């Protein structure tokens, strides 16, 4: 048992750090460190830089062109990116659909789709959720009927994050209504430029256009876009969900945001107010404890010697902490977080901000936005059901 990273791990981290700091565009890092709005171009620029280096698919095995890193290396990469102020990698392509294509797609699909994902050229979206099917994913209703060498897809997906930018979307669709709800589901890749696909924005409580409804009206999808076997999609989807790893706790971002919280508290004059400072101290303990929890999971993954039943805790705790740091940032600014000036959340805004501190502009919006974290990806209530199952059977 050893808390220190090995010399090899430290050298690896140094390499990553040097490269990230040299290649991350400073304008993007500045936006991330100040929670300013990122454009599609910001996200794409960074994705393509990573893609060129071969690190956009940083979790990929070597056989598919990835770096073949182990769990600890992936974590160190994520940490260096987060601390340097890199945007989070949009996960739908490289982190979500790619592993499914690698595991269950045929060689032709792999050769066709993986390069565009690895390079950052092709933007993928996720088509899982439907209205009325939240945590009860298997109750989905979008139909795909086989007609000759195509499927005809009809239905609606929702909460499609950044779907307005999507080139392709991977979808769970119903190809059979027989048996249990889980058994009639298939996994389809759909070109979003196909006739009959409509993307409609959903405005969230922070005023942002972050998620969408995606409608399918007699959309023709070639059968070669089916992953694996018909009606086996649930199995592949579960593989994908099990692939969501420790990064779900997002502890590295939490560490960066804790620094930002302290900067804000100092600027607002509450860092030396014992009452407020105690709240930060408690959050610091929470973040260190979460980081230890993450490291334990990583170590177990790396060595393969222990089987831990704690991965289910990461999402719950990570999301609570995300909500808490945005809450404390807003409370630190207090009255000066009240102005909700949409344009002031963009980089380079030249107007006056009430109280004069434009860094406060996005604080309330960040807080509002983070309410989603305990809802999405399996609500924390569903996560508690799962944890209880491990304890109680």
């Amino acid at each position, binding site marked *: 048992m050893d808390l220190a990273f090995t010399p090899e791990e430290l050298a690896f981290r140094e390499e990553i750090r040097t490269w990230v700091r040299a290649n991350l565009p400073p304008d993007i890092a500045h936006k991330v460190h100040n929670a300013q709005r990122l454009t599609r171009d910001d996200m794409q620029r960074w994705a393509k830089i990573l893609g060129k280096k071969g690190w956009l698919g940083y979790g990929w095995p070597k056989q598919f062109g990835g770096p073949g890193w182990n769990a600890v290396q992936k974590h160190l990469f994520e940490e260096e990116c987060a601390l340097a102020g890199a945007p989070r990698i949009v996960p739908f392509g490289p982190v979500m659909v790619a592993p499914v294509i690698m595991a269950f797609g045929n060689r032709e699909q792999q050769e066709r789709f993986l390069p565009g994902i690895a390079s950052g050229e092709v933007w993928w979206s996720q088509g899982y*959720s439907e209205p*009325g099917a*939240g*945590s*009860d994913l298997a*109750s989905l209703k979008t139909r795909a009927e086989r007609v000759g060498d195509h499927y005809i897809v009809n239905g609606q997906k*929702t*909460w499609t994050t950044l779907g307005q930018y999507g080139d392709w979307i991977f979808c769970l669709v119903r190809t059979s209504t027989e048996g249990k709800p889980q058994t009639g589901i298939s996994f389809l890749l759909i070109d979003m430029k196909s006739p009959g696909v409509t993307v409609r924005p*959903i*405005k*969230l*409580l922070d*005023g942002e256009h972050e998620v969408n409804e995606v409608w399918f009206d007699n959309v023709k999808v070639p059968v070669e876009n089916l992953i694996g076997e018909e009606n086996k999609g649930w199995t592949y989807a579960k593989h994908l969900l099990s692939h969501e790893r420790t990064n779900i706790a997002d502890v590295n971002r939490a560490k960066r945001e804790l620094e930002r919280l302290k900067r804000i508290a100092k600027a*607002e*004059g*509450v860092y030396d107010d014992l*009452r*407020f400072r105690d*709240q930060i101290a408690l959050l610091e303990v929470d973040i260190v404890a979460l980081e230890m929890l993450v490291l334990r999971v990583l170590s177990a993954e790396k060595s393969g010697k222990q089987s831990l039943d704690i991965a289910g805790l990461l999402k719950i705790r990570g999301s609570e902490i995300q909500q808490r740091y945005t809450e404390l940032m*807003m*409370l630190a600014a*207090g*009255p*000066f*977080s*009240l*102005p*909700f*000036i949409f344009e002031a959340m963009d980089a380079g805004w030249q107007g*006056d901000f*009430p*109280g*004069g501190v434009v860094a406060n502009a996005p604080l*309330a919006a960040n*807080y*509002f*936005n983070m*309410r*989603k974290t*305990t*809802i*999405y990806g399996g*609500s*924390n*209530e569903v996560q*508690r059901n799962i944890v209880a199952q491990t304890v109680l059977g």
Partner: protein
Amino acid sequence: MDFDFSDDQMQLRDAVRRWVDKGYGFERRKAIVAAGGFDRAAYAELAELGLCGLYVSEAHGGLGMGPVEGMVVMEELGRGIVLEPLAQTLLASALIGGYASADLQAEWLPRIASGDALVVLAHQERGLRYALGAALTRATPQGDGWTLTGRKSLVPAGDAADAWLVPALTEQGLGLFVVAKGAAGTQASGYLTQDGSRAAEVSLNGAAAQLVTRDGQTALEHAADIGIAASSAYAVGVMDQTLAVTADYLNTRKQFGVPIASFQALRHRMADMKMQLELARSMSYYASLKLHAPVAERRQALSRAKVQLGQSMRFVGQQAVQLHGGIGVTDEYIVSHYFKTLTQLEMTWGDTLHHLGEVSARMQATAGVFA
């Protein structure tokens, strides 16, 4: 000791509720937010109901009512998350009616009561945070009157108002002044706030002002306490509606083939929300009923109330969003607007930690509702 409402109070409540239900629906509110967060026509409707004169004496054209009626009205406005700042009108009329000269009262109170003049408090300055009583804005005597120079932040509906009540430093300490918006040297620039209501930065550059009182500190603390009581009542209205729509949603929404209201963990959350609502309602009563208590007792009581309200508002708002799931974080559905309103209210007139500090500083050996 009696917490029943009189028949008159219930009639007043019903009248305001009718207006909110029929006249201030979610669609109208959205349109007002889109248009800047304040609607003079809606404010005029409040005046027509007599609400702008609630705290104005009958001699000056008001209703001459008190804190309980103020509470009744504010709770109903909370139900509709009404954006127009009636709480400001209540405290402005109480300050002018309680501290200003007879001339000044005669000049302003009838116009406030009729809704012709919206008068709001402009006290926030950068660096003050929740402190009352300091100010960088300076007041200088000039002839019979005064001129003011300084800058005030976050003035509610500040660019739509007709006059501002402005605390400013004189050589003898903090005074409270009234400045007409049209006066030379004044400028106001408005913007939206978190909950969709309007605020403004107000700058004063040798602006002509009338003195309300030389004891600005006392008046300002009084204003804050009226503000806390009014916002507490408003928040109770918001939370009451929040629980109602959440309960409806849990009974309607199905997952795994059953209404999610059948899940015990969610039921218990609902019970906890009910607890927070009723503790908040209890302390809203307490806040309003203590508004006429001696100053030290009043200040202690209002801080206690705000500590309870702050906790209740945060819990109820956050949990309502959570229990709604995805739809809870959308702009189109009303629950996120309740949540944002409750969030903003926590940071209005001092947040929970601030008032916990006040309670802590004012602790005595014994404590209770009557002490």
